[in-house]
């Protein structure tokens, strides 16, 4: 039985300046997702998380190209499909929630109109059934007085409410997978928790699989079952949430965990030294190596391959091998 | 109005009158008219009107393109301007007691009989019977009197100053009494020269006021005013009850179209039937187009003048310099270039359209010479043997090309200057100020002026020291002019007039170039076909083809 979604060694590059400049936005991403599972994708800005989300639904900008890899939805190859076929996938089987609620909604159309669209186009709801459906969706995302608020325009709603509406839009088509790209980053902290709880409830109720992109490890801990840590376009570590927090295997993951501020102490904040890499000019060998505390000679020369470790963790690092050999 | 017959005949007539004192009617009778004034009269040369019995209904629409924007003010004779353009509208909507017609420079129109006392202190008119205005109200001497008294237009001051009182004998007979002899009265009263003879309906004007009259005038002329779009277009409709004849065209539309290329285009597409001022670059196209006809329509003579010449430090102070200028101009070439050879090289700066002008075709004044060698020779005798630089050559707007050509001619003898191109209004303003309009004294002006009133009017404007537009101011001419103004003798006046003209040309105060054809182009819808249209231009000394009631066009489809 194939997984719901499988991404296998995906590479997508941006080609600029007539092909002379190549930005390796996604340079080896693999993961799989089952129904009802929440997969967290973590990393700093610019590491390729958003590109991955767009790549999955084949909506990368025209200057980008998927150069290799596979994406399969329930065993169907998504890379071979035409754009017309992909439109049947988007919204209907894979839905997306974007980061900025203030910018996500079309200012000229009513809430009803925008929530109804996926249901209209993908599930052929019409007329009274459509209205009923929209009302249900709005109730599900806990919008009060949905009948009245349906007629409103986006500017009449607060940020938190808009993001919930975006969630309703995502559900409207009845998808199997929802990709949420930093959905709470632009919300007030107090609203964030509410929203996350809502997402979790919706997921439990509908059995939808969730890809949750964030840079906030706290959210990861709360929401996700499985986590992938991205760096420089690659997933450098993938584990269960428990495993990641209790036993991080990649130096970058360790550094991320270390840099979470701890309450109660006045220790100086730990900052990962160096800068995130320029994806068009990656260093030789391991991409993280310039900033890595545990960098070895081999790291500088050879790019680490994927290491599958015993407890279903994978990591792109030479360390485990090294540890294994040194431990004897 | 000057008489062709000499003073001798007048004396003979007066002598005959003196002998047949009791039979006063004989002298003044013309076709059975009873005299109005007593005493000796001036013999007037006013032609009878040609009254045509109705020939049929007016038909067709006649479209005329004027070369500048229309002014509703032109519909009000009380505010008649000096320029001739306004008469176009006078001839349409209004009628005058006497006016120029194909029959003669002065032709009876509203008046059927006129008399001028020999002492020039009384003038009398008898109106035709049964005259009406467009609204059906009768036209009577009350309107004639009212028009005179309320006239504010050209020469208004003169008319008002000279007038003693107006006597209404009956509703068809009127006598003007003047404080002093008013020799030019008949000339000035003629519709060509001023508006005072174009009769305005008193009852209507008083009712609607100045603005109302200009917006919607009423007159006694062959066409009724229908409507206008201020500045753009005026529409007129034939008035079938006009006393002289039924107008031939049913509707006349006059449009103001500035651009001559646009006028040409209008003729070619059939939207226009008559266009004025088809000169310059469009003339060859008009001549080449087989569908169009054209009439040379000679107006006045191009000439050069030298404002400030009479100051000693002006290069043009020396007569020989001015003579060199005249010799340098290649008039034949100009005529070919500017008018496709239609124009005529001419020796007087005043047009032969004026009865009292000397003819410049060799009969009275010689044709001007073009001789570069002689020009250089003459110049060599002056302070500027190798030529000199003057400042500005100011051409008549917008004939800048012609100005350039003349400048090139002058350069060939070493007289060098720059072209100053002004805007139309600016040019007219400067000319209106005469010598004062052109500061400095190193300027040459190129001008043309088809003004009515005879050569003496033109002289009075440009060559008399006291005129605001004076350019020439010479004691010799002043003396002659003073005598002219003081003289009560028409023959003597004529003599003095011509003497002044001779001096102006012989001393090169004015340098004539060529007699200008202000070409009109006519479209195919105007009847009769072919060259027959030339008869529309029969009215002497008229730069526009009035009267309008004779123009025939094809009926509208």
């Amino acid at each position, binding site marked *: 039985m194939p997984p719901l979604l499988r991404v296998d060694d995906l590479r997508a590059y941006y080609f600029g300046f007539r092909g002379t400049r190549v930005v390796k936005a996604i340079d080896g991403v693999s993961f799989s997702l089952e129904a009802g599972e929440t997969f967290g994708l973590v990393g700093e800005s610019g590491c390729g998380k958003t590109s991955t989300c767009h790549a999955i639904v084949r909506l990368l900008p025209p200057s980008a190209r998927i150069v290799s890899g596979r994406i399969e939805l329930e065993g169907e190859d998504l890379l071979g499909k035409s754009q017309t076929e992909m439109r049947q996938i988007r919204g209907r089987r894979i839905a997306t929630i974007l980061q900025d609620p203030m910018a996500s909604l079309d200012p000229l159309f009513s809430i009803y109109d925008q929530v109804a669209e996926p249901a209209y186009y993908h599930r052929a709801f019409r007329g009274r059934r459509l209205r009923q459906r929209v009302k249900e969706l709005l109730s599900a995302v806990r919008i009060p007085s949905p009948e009245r608020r349906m007629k409103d325009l986006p500017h009449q709603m607060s940020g938190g409410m808009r993001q919930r509406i975006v969630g309703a839009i995502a559900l409207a088509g009845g998808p199997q997978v929802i990709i949420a790209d930093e959905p709470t980053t632009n919300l007030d902290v107090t609203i964030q928790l509410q929203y996350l709880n809502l997402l979790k409830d919706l997921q439990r109720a509908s059995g939808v699989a969730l890809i949750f992109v964030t840079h906030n490890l706290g959210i990861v801990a709360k929401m996700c079952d499985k986590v992938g840590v991205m760096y420089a376009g690659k997933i450098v570590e993938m584990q269960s949430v428990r495993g990641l927090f209790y036993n991080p295997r990649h130096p970058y993951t360790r550094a991320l965990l270390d840099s979470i501020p701890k309450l109660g102490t006045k220790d100086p904040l730990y900052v990962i030294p160096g800068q995130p890499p320029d994806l068009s000019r990656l260093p030789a060998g391991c991409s993280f190596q310039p900033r890595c505390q545990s960098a070895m000679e081999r790291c500088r020369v050879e790019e680490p391959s994927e290491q599958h470790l015993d407890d279903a963790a994978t990591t792109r690092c030479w360390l485990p091998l090294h540890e294994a050999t040194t431990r004897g | 109005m000057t008489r062709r017959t000499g003073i001798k005949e007048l004396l003979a007539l007066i002598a005959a009158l003196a002998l047949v004192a009791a039979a006063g009617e004989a002298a003044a009778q013309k076709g059975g008219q009873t005299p109005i004034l007593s005493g000796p009269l001036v013999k007037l040369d006013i032609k009878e009107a040609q009254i045509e019995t109705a020939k049929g209904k007016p038909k067709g629409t006649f479209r005329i393109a004027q070369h500048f924007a229309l002014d509703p003010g032109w519909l009000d004779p009380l505010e008649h301007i000096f320029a001739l353009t306004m008469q176009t509208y006078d001839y349409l909507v209004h009628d005058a007691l006497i006016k120029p017609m194909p029959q003669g420079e002065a032709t009876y129109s509203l008046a059927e009989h006129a008399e001028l006392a020999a002492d020039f202190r009384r003038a009398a008119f008898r109106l035709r019977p049964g005259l009406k205005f467009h609204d059906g109200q009768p036209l009577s001497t009350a309107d004639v009197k009212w028009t005179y008294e309320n006239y504010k237009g050209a020469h208004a001051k003169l008319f008002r100053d000279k007038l003693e009182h107006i006597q209404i004998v009956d509703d068809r007979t009127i006598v003007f009494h003047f404080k002093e002899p008013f020799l030019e009265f008949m000339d000035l009263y003629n519709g060509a020269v001023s508006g005072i003879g174009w009769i305005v309906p008193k009852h209507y004007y008083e009712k609607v006021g100045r603005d109302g009259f200009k917006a919607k005038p009423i007159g006694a002329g062959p066409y009724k005013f229908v409507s206008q779009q201020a500045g753009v277009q005026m529409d007129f409709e034939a008035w079938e009850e006009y006393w002289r004849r039924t107008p031939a065209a049913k509707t006349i539309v006059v449009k103001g179209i500035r651009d001559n290329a646009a006028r040409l285009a209008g003729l070619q597409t059939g939207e226009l039937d008559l266009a004025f001022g088809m000169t310059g670059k469009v003339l060859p196209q008009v001549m080449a187009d087989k569908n169009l006809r054209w009439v040379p329509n000679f107006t006045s003579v191009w000439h050069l003048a030298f404002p400030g010449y009479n100051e000693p430090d002006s290069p043009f102070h020396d007569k020989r310099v001015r003579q060199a200028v005249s010799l340098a101009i290649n008039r034949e070439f100009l005529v070919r270039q500017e008018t496709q050879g239609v124009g005529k090289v001419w020796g007087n700066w005043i047009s032969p359209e004026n009865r009292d002008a000397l003819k410049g075709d060799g009969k009275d004044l010689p044709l001007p010479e073009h001789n570069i060698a002689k020009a250089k020779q003459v110049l060599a005798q002056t302070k500027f043997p190798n030529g000199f630089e003057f400042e500005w050559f100011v051409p008549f707007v917008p004939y800048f090309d012609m100005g350039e050509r003349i400048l090139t001619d002058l350069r060939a003898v070493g007289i060098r200057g720059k072209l100053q191109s002004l805007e139309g209004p600016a040019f007219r303003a400067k000319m209106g100020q005469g010598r004062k309009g052109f500061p400095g004294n190193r300027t040459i002006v190129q001008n043309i002026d088809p003004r009515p009133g005879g050569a003496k009017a033109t002289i009075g404007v440009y060559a008399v020291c006291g005129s*605001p537009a004076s350019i020439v101011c010479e004691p010799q001419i002043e003396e002659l002019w003073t005598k002219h103004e003081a003289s009560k003798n028409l023959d003597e006046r004529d003599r003095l007039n011509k003497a002044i003209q001779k001096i102006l040309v012989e001393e090169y105060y004015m340098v004539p170039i060529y007699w200008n054809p202000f070409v009109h182009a006519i479209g195919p819808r105007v009847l009769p076909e072919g060259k027959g249209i030339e008869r529309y231009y029969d009215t002497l000394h008229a730069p526009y083809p009035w009267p309008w009631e004779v123009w025939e066009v094809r009926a509208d489809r």
Partner: protein
Amino acid sequence: MRKYVLLRGFYSLVTLWLLVTIIFAMVRLTGDPVAMKGEIGADATYLERIKHDWGLDQPVYWQYTGFIGNLLKGDFGHSFEKSLPVRDIYFERLPNSLKLGFAAFVISLALGVPFGMLSALKVNTWWDNAGKMIALLGLSMPGFFVGLVLIIIFGVQLGWLPVLGKGSSAFVWSNPATWAPFWFRDWPHLAMPAFALGWYFSGAMLRITRSGMLDVLGSDYIKLVRLKGVPERMVVAKHALKNSLIPVLTFAGLNLLIMVNVAVVIEVIFNWPGVGQLLYDGLSNRDFPMVQGVVLMSGLMIVMLNFVIDVLYGYVDPRIRLSR
């Protein structure tokens, strides 16, 4: 809100007053208008009578106060050249300019907007380059050139369209029966001048539409609409179109005003009797009241439009709407 409206109204009046004063002063710098009417050889009395009629024999400050006083009564004075009241002449001509302006406006939208959208949708392709070139042609070919070419080709050579004026239909303010037919009759006369005028602005419309559309296409909400799987034609026709038209129409509104008021060159070439021609005649002939009147009216229209836009924006912005 009320304070806001009053303040905006006050500023509008100040702007108008400044405009009127400046044009009053500037027009008197062009020279002496009496010389226009008084022909060469006119005697002093004649010229003085004209000067008196025109009120120019009074000192300048007196002329100014008289002028402002009359303005407040709605009297713009009498045209020097055309002898009738400026207001009457202006309003007689205004419908003609409105007709031409609207037609040119429609043409500029019809040419500019679709091509602008096409350019944006197919950005950086051959279509886009063609669109940009059309825009450039529109903006770089002056109206009089296009006008004359049209006259020669369609008027004279082919004889399809009349070259002069606007035809016989007239808009008479006092006669409502003439109102509706005025807009639709004589369209052959309207075709060339409207095209010549609209052509120029279509270039601007194309660029504005293109950049507006590109902005919209790059926005998050369009991205989300695509992520929803909405068919591409609906993305464009429903969402992108409506959103990109708002800046276009705002810009277009101002263009319309310009087309109505400042189509001087086109009106002169085609002998279209509009207010632009009045301005041209007025300037050529030093017709002070006419120039003052036309400039004032144009200024009034633009100031009023800006005032209305200000008030609308104020209404839309809740911070202003809800303030006192």
